[in-house]
């Protein structure tokens, strides 16, 4: 267990990166707190796996340093870093039994046989494979194999960090839930520093204490699930998290009021005068359909998804989503929307702007 510090870190797969675009991972400073569970969330190709592989030492960064508990490990090998990592697709040693697979990392580090036997039994129980311990790994199903990979990742107790690279992709949905819960309880029990890479927001939000959202090689926001939901730091975060994502509406802002196509929209804070590309971000949950006041919309269709209704509408020719309560009637007279002022975020050039109390 360790605190992991990324100092001025950046990585390019090219030998001589010339511009910022050549970097798969753009300059980054961050401290991963000891014993915390993080989720690294982003769409594919955003650099999250690159970051993970740099932490585990499979990749060496083009610039910057990595420190484990304030010791520089940038040039240290993977095994010297003493971390565990689970990959997207199951990696098992086909010719070994499940038991030998789980024991492998311990054996390689010269642990006591008695300890290995006990530990393997524990992990076997944890991943629900006690019965199959003496089977060969080759014939098992993909999710059984992935459980072995997870088990192999967790078998060492003294690791500095546990890294997961989209480990549940190949697992059945109901099993996913179970394994994620187990990982979480494992975290509570042993307090490992965990970093969990995923592109699935549900997975990220349910697993982690803190979610790190990446976009285009850059960390755009780090925060609790609630912060990501209420105060997305970047329009990408707003769009990526939530279902449907945040509505982004071009506007102009002065003081504590925004103008959308000539209609005034009240804001809860004072932003002064903003220059650049100014947009309002409002989550569909905070948009209310009304009959008389607010911005004019045309309703295209209503989707009933069970717990609530999603109203697909258009606002000045652009898509706008509204979440309405399950019991609410949608009448043809509802041609306008209002936003809850507390939940309207203002973005300048895609980054969230912080206002002063009005």
């Amino acid at each position, binding site marked *: 267990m360790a605190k992991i510090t990324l100092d001025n870190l950046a990585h390019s797969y090219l030998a001589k*990166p010339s511009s910022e675009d050549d970097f798969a991972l753009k300059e980054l*400073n961050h401290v991963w707190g000891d014993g915390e569970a993080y989720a690294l969330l982003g769409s594919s190709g955003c650099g999250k796996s690159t970051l993970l592989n740099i932490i585990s030492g499979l990749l060496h960064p083009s*610039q910057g340093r990595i420190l484990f508990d304030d010791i520089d490990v940038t040039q240290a090998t993977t095994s010297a870093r003493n971390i565990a990592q689970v990959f997207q697709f199951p990696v098992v040693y086909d010719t070994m039994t499940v038991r030998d697979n789980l024991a492998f990392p311990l054996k390689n580090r010269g642990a006591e046989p008695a300890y290995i036997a006990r530990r393997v039994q524990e992990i076997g129980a944890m991943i629900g494979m006690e019965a199959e311990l003496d089977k060969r790994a080759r014939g098992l199903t993909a999710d059984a194999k992935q459980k072995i990979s997870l088990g192999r990742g967790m078998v060492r107790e003294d690791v500095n960090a546990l890294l997961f690279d989209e480990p549940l992709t190949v697992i059945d949905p109901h099993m996913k839930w179970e394994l994620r819960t187990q990982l979480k309880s494992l975290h509570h029990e042993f307090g490992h520093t965990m970093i969990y890479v995923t592109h699935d927001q549900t997975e990220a939000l349910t697993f982690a204490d803190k979610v790190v959202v990446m976009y285009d090689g*850059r*960390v755009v926001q780090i*925060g609790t699930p609630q912060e990501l939901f209420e105060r997305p730091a*970047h329009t990408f975060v707003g769009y990526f998290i939530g279902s449907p994502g945040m509505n982004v509406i071009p506007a102009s802002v002065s003081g504590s009021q925004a103008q959308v196509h000539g209609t005034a929209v009240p804001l809860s804070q004072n932003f002064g005068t903003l220059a650049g590309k100014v947009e309002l971000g409002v989550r569909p949950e905070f948009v209310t359909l009304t009959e008389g006041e607010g911005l004019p919309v045309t309703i295209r269709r209503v989707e009933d998804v069970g717990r609530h209704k999603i109203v697909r509408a258009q606002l000045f020719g652009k898509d706008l989503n509204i979440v309405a309560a399950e019991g609410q009637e949608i009448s043809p007279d509802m041609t306008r929307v209002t936003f809850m002022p507390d939940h309207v975020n203002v973005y300048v050039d895609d*980054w969230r702007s912080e206002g002063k109390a009005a």
Partner: protein
Amino acid sequence: MADTATAPGAATIPGDVAPSVPQATRRRRFRPNGSVVVMTLYLLFLLLPIYWLLNMSLKTNTEILNEFTLWPRNLTLANYATILTDPSWYTGYINSLIYVVMNTVISLAVALPAAYAFSRYRFMGDNHLFFWLLTNRMAPPAVFALPFFQLYSSVGLFDTHIAVALAHCLFNVPLAVWILEGFMRGVPKEIDETAYIDGYSFPRFFIRIFTPLIASGIGVAAFFCFMFSWVELLLSRTLTTVDAKPIAAIMTRTQGASGIDWGVLAAAGILTIVPGALVIYFVRNYIAKGFALGRV
């Protein structure tokens, strides 16, 4: 809240990212690499005998026999000129190429439908048939030399290209079926079903849709058919005398009354390597995949 305000990405935009050059070079510094040594030695072992043949083919017989030189002192192309101007020499190449191409075409033509049947359907005796086909790949050509001679003589095909091409089918057809079956198994069956639903007839489906999908497999099978037909000598020599005599058999002619004409022999040898080298050059990007025969 605190975290949102100090989102690290936001703080460094537009980040002035400079690569740290010293570090990059430190990692890429030269170190003696065992693999390079191993590969160099192995390739040297492979190429030295071929180089020696090339070296000899460019020398005069006097130089070959009287001086021991590592490279030709009196570079001469006379040996090649002898071969390329004498019809009894160069027709050997033409003969070889004719039956090799014929064999490749025949092998693929019959192997394609059969491989499809084995990869898609179960039918009476399919496994036995498949294994029996493969046993033909295990048949020693020496066993078949005499019966082939008699068989092709009795049907009047002796000393024709087609006779050699058919004889080589003995080992190339089973191989082609086996390779193609491996590649075809990799094509999902749903593709066939979709095509039939879309109203394709079997021949049209096979030619228009299926064949392009296994093009690499066909290439690999063709490569192996070419290879084994080109390099074989025992059968091709037994089945021919004059009209279809392969170059490999003609090479034995250099043993004249005055001893062996080493220079011409070496030149002829080098010329037999050329078609193979050309084929390899054209398939160079597929070699690694090809040798896996669709079965990895």
